């Protein structure tokens, strides 16, 4: 038995890993269920940094990743775009990676064009495209954006784009969001943009920076928190936590809007919306109570529809991917333990190297 385990063909381990990832994907795909998330302070900081902005504030979103890291980073990029769109912030997209514009366009198509069709290109969001030069691009656009970005990704001169008229440099932004898979990425944005020109004690009006990055990058970014980097989403876990916060907030917003449309005062609607968003079915129960007597039947059915509306799958990708991650991590722990048991047993018998 020991000898068999010692000489175990690695293809068996590959098969186990394949099953550990594949089976949860199938199960979650069929059931649609996800694990509950408890946001960590870092994910909460990212959420707060976006949420504290006012409608019309400017956000620079730099998507510096490629398809290799898309599985890990696309859910957080989607959540960022949804949060900004829902918050009615002006979004300036750009990329320092050659295939970054693909990631930008994908999110524009999946989030803005499908779910926020009232947002206008050039007035509410703009895609500035890719620029070669790595940190040199950051170094220049942080003081003069137009030196590099003379047109958007479609070739329209920036002078003809309404939302570009009030932007001279990155310093005109209110928030910098970076989703990155390596170099150039979060570290370069922190070193060349956030540190010299971002919000600090001497520059309280400066922009804040938040980032989302891969698991291997995250440990390298922790030293910059919280002064140079207001918040960090590390890998799919960070994405799932942020996604959870955004989904909850969007539901709250929609419930509050439905309550206000039904004739309720804004402050009261906001309080009730928080309760309804957290407990499924609570809105329906409330509509049959006396407290909802003044609401019209149409407003009540609208409220129930909004409160119990399922979250579209594209906004649950991060939380769904925590399932395969759980089983894969458990398998890794198990393999390490088994490997060590074999090692110590072999050593006891005098066979270990």
């Amino acid at each position, binding site marked *: 038995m020991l000898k068999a385990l010692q000489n*175990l063909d*690695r293809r068996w*381990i*590959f098969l*186990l*890993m*394949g099953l550990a*990832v594949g089976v949860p994907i199938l199960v979650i795909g069929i059931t649609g269920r996800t*694990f*509950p998330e*408890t946001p*960590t*302070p*870092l994910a909460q900081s990212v959420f707060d940094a976006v949420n504290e902005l006012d409608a019309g504030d400017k956000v620079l979103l730099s998507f510096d990743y*490629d*398809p*290799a*890291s*898309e*599985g890990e980073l696309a859910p957080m990029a989607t959540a960022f775009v949804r949060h900004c769109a829902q918050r009615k912030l002006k979004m300036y997209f750009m990329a320092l990676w050659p*295939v970054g*514009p*693909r990631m930008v*366009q994908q999110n524009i198509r999946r989030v803005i064009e499908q779910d926020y069709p009232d947002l206008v290109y050039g007035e509410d969001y703009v895609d500035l495209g890719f*620029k*070669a*030069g*790595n940190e*040199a*691009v950051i*170094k*220049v656009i942080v*003081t*003069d954006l137009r030196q*590099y970005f003379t047109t958007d990704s*479609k070739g329209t001169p920036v002078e003809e784009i309404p939302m570009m008229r009030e932007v001279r440099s990155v310093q005109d932004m209110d928030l910098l969001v970076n989703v990155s898979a390596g170099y150039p990425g979060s570290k370069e944005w922190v070193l060349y943009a956030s540190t010299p020109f971002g919000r600090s004690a001497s520059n309280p009006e400066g922009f804040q920076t938040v980032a989302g990055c891969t698991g291997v990058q*995250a*440990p*390298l970014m*922790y*030293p910059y*928190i919280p002064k140079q980097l207001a918040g960090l989403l*590390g*890998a799919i*876990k960070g994405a799932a936590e942020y996604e959870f916060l955004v989904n909850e907030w969007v539901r709250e917003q929609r419930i509050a809007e439905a309550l206000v449309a039904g004739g309720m005062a804004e402050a009261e609607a906001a309080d009730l919306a928080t309760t309804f968003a957290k407990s499924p079915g609570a809105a329906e129960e409330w509509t049959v109570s006396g407290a909802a007597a003044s609401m019209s039947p149409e407003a009540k059915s609208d409220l129930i529809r909004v409160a119990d509306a399922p979250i579209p799958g594209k906004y649950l990708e991060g939380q769904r991917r*925590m399932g395969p*991650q*759980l089983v*894969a*991590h*458990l*398998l*890794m*722990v198990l*393999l*390490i333990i*088994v*490997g*060590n048991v074999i*090692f110590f047993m072999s050593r006891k018998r005098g066979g270990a190297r």
Partner: protein
Amino acid sequence: MRRTVPLWITAIAGVALVISAFLPATRGWGEDVATWFSILAAVAFVLGGGNLLKVHLRKISDRQSGWGYSSIVLACFFATLWVGLFKVGVHPNPKYPDVAYSGQTQGIGSPFWWLYEYAFKPLTSTMFAMLAFYVASAAFRAFRAKNVEAVLLLGTAFIILLGRTFAGVVLTGWIPADGAFAGLRLENLSVYVMQVFNTAGNRAIIIGIALGIASTSLKILLGIDRSYLGSGD
């Protein structure tokens, strides 16, 4: 001449960048140098293409082992270059319907989009995903508690692996979240490890690297270290 000119370019560009960081009046110098760098970076794409051709054509002409793969690389390279450069199959921009080549190369449904969506994207995703299999195999064969350091590393790995998933909540969920021992819950422990031990170690490394970079940069700017010129000095 071949060595002196690059040395002077490096020294002037480097000194301009250093000065511009300290004197606001000279900030424009730094921006100019950064712009030169970006132009060079764009030219590097062409040089990269040239180098790729050189390496793989030599492999094919010498019939070195794996020359077949080189021919696939070159075929893919030329196909992508041709489709992208000549805007093959691109529809004209609706704004300028009469202007040839006015459409976007990367528009949905275009051959370039097709190459990206059905060749580049699945291939790069697959390459990265294969890491999971090799990491699992390596964990089984190499991650051994041979000494105290290895035991510490193993313990930290377990905390992070479990704490970053719902397993952490299940295993230590019985510890009251608001109690004195809440910090021992795996999800909190993993955050603690990242924010305290990792940050402390990384800050030390970052400071060390920064000092090293400053020293190496000075050597390069002063022309003491010329190894980047490929001279072997």
